């Protein structure tokens, strides 16, 4: 199971990377987009929650990036930091415009979130996605309700007609399973984070 998913994702990444001609401005620009847009979306969503807002932010950031001198001047390695900073600033501006206050909790979580998205590991995410898809149907439904639809445990329990404790247990077991499944790679991942 695990092997298959690894092959699939590996292949796809490889394809995306070679298809773009980085020698042209357009190619280079698209390459950056393909490379970073997904983690940037997740990053924007961590500030904004609403998908439409995140879409606006990402398109604004990339349009500005294309128009600005930054695109020509900064080196590939610095582009990542530039893009993540821009997304952060644009999100904060948008929140200010909507007069939404960020509290201590947000600030506390920000570092963790930023670190996670900056070190986005597409292959790992795809493998987790695949692993979830092979879980028992009930567990999968609960994971989707909680994470995709953002439902509360009680809401999930009501929808599925099961007790809240069953929801908690199944979800906890599901996540525990993922933790054990990816334990090795999670550690490796953290290790990479630490030595940077």
């Amino acid at each position, binding site marked *: 199971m695990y092997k298959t998913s690894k092959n*699939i994702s590996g*292949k796809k990444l490889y394809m995306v990377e*070679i298809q773009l001609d980085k020698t042209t401005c357009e190619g280079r620009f698209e390459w950056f987009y393909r490379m970073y847009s997904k983690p940037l979306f*997740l990053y924007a969503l961590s500030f904004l929650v609403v998908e439409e807002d995140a879409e606006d932010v990402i398109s604004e950031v990339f349009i500005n990036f294309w*128009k600005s001198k930054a695109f020509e*001047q900064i080196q590939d390695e610095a582009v990542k930091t530039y893009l993540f900073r821009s997304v952060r600033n644009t999100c904060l501006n948008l929140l200010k415009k909507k007069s939404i206050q960020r509290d201590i909790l947000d600030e506390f979580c920000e570092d963790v979130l930023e670190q996670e998205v900056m070190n986005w590991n597409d292959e790992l*995410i795809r493998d987790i996605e695949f692993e979830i898809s092979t879980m028992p149907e009930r567990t999968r439904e609960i994971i989707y309700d909680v994470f995709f639809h953002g439902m509360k445990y009680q809401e999930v329990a009501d929808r599925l007609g099961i007790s809240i404790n069953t929801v908690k247990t199944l*979800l906890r077991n599901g996540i525990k399973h993922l933790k054990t499944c990816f334990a090795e790679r999670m550690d490796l991942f953290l290790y990479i984070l630490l030595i940077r």
Partner: protein
Amino acid sequence: MDIDEWINSYLSGKLSEKERQELARWLDVSPEHKSMFCKELRMRLRVLAAVKNSRLEQMCDEVWLRVLPLVKRSRRKIISWWVYAACVVLVVGLGGLLFWFLQPDVIEAPVVLSNVLQTEAGNTKAVLLTSIGEKIVLTDSVLSHSVEIPGVGLIQDSLGVRFVEEEESIAQEDTMGWNTIIVPERGEYFVTLTDGTRVWMNSASKLEFPVRFAENCREVHLEGEAYFEVTPDTQKPFLVNMGEKQVRVLGTSFNVMAYPEDNKTEVALLQGKVSFDVAGKVFVLNPGEIATAERVKGEVMIRKGDVATILAWKSGVFNFEDMDLVELTVKLSRWYGVDFVFEDMAAKELRFSGAVTKYRSLDYVLDMIAQTTNVEFIENQEKIIIRTRER
């Protein structure tokens, strides 16, 4: 609330003001609380990312289409020196990598460009035929006018169209009809059905589905190519009918290619389990397997294959692996709405592997092929003639 529910709710932005304060206070109590919270947050963010992965990809593709016209309008001329340096290395490297061929000996200057060759790529568009015979043009913008379909609400957003069942109209006679979505050549479209099943439709494809699904099964008809992400429901299996062939599913993701004019029907399974029923025989597929039914002989073959390659069209990429030029031009003509004619039968045998984004103009794609083989593409009376080049 438990700590893990706190985190989940925090991630989905659903914590109330009171809960936020409570959580902040709890974090303040001890450093252990904090480190435990961080660890869980990290893990859950990854699960969130995994669960939303395909949704995120979809958002990326959508926004790229918004950004792309701007990039095209204002082309940049200045290339800094190090891009130039990289260019030399890349051209040498990429030339060989992008496509590898049977006859890699000729590399000549690109073919002359012309109007047909500059055909823009397809985009998001479709036509909806409602059960009461109304015809509605769907594009990536808002609906041209509001529509009333008995028993069904229609929500159009930037991604496509979503069908929502209306609770109040239970009158059976109103909800017996079928809706049809037709995606023309040069089009692609995304539909969410009333049960939440998501369908990405490729060019030149037709999907028929009932206004309301029956009590015991969810049945749709497909001509052409589509990728399905079926909402799990054990009580109501999902059936995709393609003439005499059928795919039966409970809840899963798979791609179906069933163009009436093609000589094969193909089902590729990404996740879950489906059964492919051909003329009374049942073939069960496991993830990563691709089933092909020959039209004439009716033979069914199941092989392990790269399903991701087959699904690439949905993420805006043409992906072909060891595909012959005939099949490749059929795919291109569906997306660009242009006809190809083989002048040279030898060219039909050429096989290709490679990938290119779908949103380039046709000449870009053909150029890539022409530059690496000895075929050339010439425009003639709105058609594109394919022949092998003189050595």
